């Protein structure tokens, strides 16, 4: 079962992935294959089974509220394409 091309375009936009017009058919077929697998899972009787949050049957360990991280701003700013005045620069964002 293929996913329709509109859905593929919407998912691509939400995930910020560029998909060219030529590849949409292929992507929709491949996503369709994945959904077939999901359909098989959906067919399993799960009434009364609690949703699983994590595959490990473990409990989260918490840490004490202490400041343990030093300032490494200059190192991190080096990794960014552009920075100025201690800020990471990005294309203008406006609401």
């Amino acid at each position, binding site marked *: 079962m293929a996913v329709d091309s509109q859905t593929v375009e*919407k998912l691509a*936009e*939400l995930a*910020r992935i560029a998909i060219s017009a030529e590849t949409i058919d292929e992507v929709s077929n491949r996503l369709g294959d994945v959904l077939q697998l999901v359909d098989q899972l959906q067919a399993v009787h799960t009434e009364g089974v609690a*949703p699983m*949050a*994590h595959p*490990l049957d*473990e*409990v*989260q*360990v*918490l*840490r*004490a*509220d*202490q*400041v*343990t*991280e030093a*300032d*490494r*701003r200059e190192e*991190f*700013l080096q990794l960014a394409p*552009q920075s*100025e*005045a*201690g*800020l*990471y*620069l*990005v*294309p*203008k*964002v*406006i*609401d």
Partner: protein
Amino acid sequence: MEWEIVIGLEVHVQLSTKSKLFSGASTRFGAPPNTQACAIDLAMPGTLPVPNEEAFRYATMFGLAMNAEIGRRSVFERKNYFYPDLPKGYQTTQLAEPIVGSGEIEIHLEDGSSKKVRLHHAHLEEDAGKSLHEAVFESGHGMSGIDLNRAGTPLIEIVSEPDMRSAAEAVAYLKKIHSIVTYLGISDGDMSQGSLRCDANVSVRLKGEQKLGTRTELKNINSFRFVERAIKVEAERQIDILEDGGSIVQETRLYDSDKNETRSMRSKEVANDYRYFPCPDLLPVILDDDYVEQLRSALPELPDAKAARFQSDYKLSAYDADLLTQERASADFFETVAKQSGEPKLAANWIGGELAALLNREELSIGESPVSAEQLAGLIARVVDNTISSKIAKQVFEAMAMGEGDADQVIEKRGLKQVSDTGSIEKMVDEVIAASGAQVENYRNADESKRPKMMGYFVGQIMKASKGQANPQMINKILKEKLDALL
């Protein structure tokens, strides 16, 4: 047509932990940009989040204060969206299994009535960074700057049911939340620094209608005053549209406080699709009964309980008790003054009167008051023991506010001690009577029922002669005796 406004609030409260929700970076406000954003906050590859136990303690305390169920098992999920101030491309938050379940609080309105507002749930999540769009750069490259110091700061998002019916109720609810989180000491509640932020879901419907109208979401309203104004102006906008036969579009709107209007946020027009899923980096957090019960028994006295106690212990009116307990600092201030002076009613009057006026004028919080609780108690004690009149007390208060010392020092230094010795008051009364022949004559000829009123003139003259320092009760008594002797 009569319209009813329906409001639900989403309140974000920054928890005052030392470090972030998932990293050991500092949360201190006002640091130079990006100096408190570590590899985890920046979503560097290979990093793993570890939750902060204090954030869970604070969130649990909040839930207990809201009479809410505590999620013994809570699960973090990823809320996926792209924005430059969110390095991971998702916000770690809670959805299906939040730490705080449904609850209920009582809000108090200015007309003295109360109302219950239901809590839908509250969850723990991380804050985003900040985008700076203003011209913060010398070169005119027109780009935005990103400061990620705030990224990862722990928040609780508190979601109410749509139970409020006016802007005033929404403000009362917000004040109650503010009051509870500051009493608990889990947040500084400073709205100007963004420690407490509010989004409002607003819709209108005809009175009597059961179905909810289409709502809009007002984003980022950052003061109590703006909450009231934003809701009012948005409700008016919706009513105008409906009365003109139009319909409301469900959307996110931004309140512009300069223009006092709301406007559509176009960037959020694409229908929200956050594709939540449980965060594979984090396991479920389990809180056991012992933990929760221990926190319950350690909760401080909360505003409603304190207000009730102030009414019964100090015989305050419900209004005074409410006013004094809204902030923990003012409640503590009052209690110190009341205990030290032994005069709770006078303490409440002074705090609600002269002190409130002073703090307003100087734009100070009660914690910054130039007159301490001990000093105010000392002043009240001097009024009660008749060392000074309540009129002179106001003068002493102003002097204390200027830093002239405590009440006894000011009274001594300025020579304000009330004159209460019979001899000198008698002397002043005699002098005024002797100098007021015509008024004395009028008094003698007046009808007996009119005489008490006519005494005011003499009292005024004597007060003037004593520079306000003569004991008024004694003046009245001696004056009456002397005048009546002339009849």
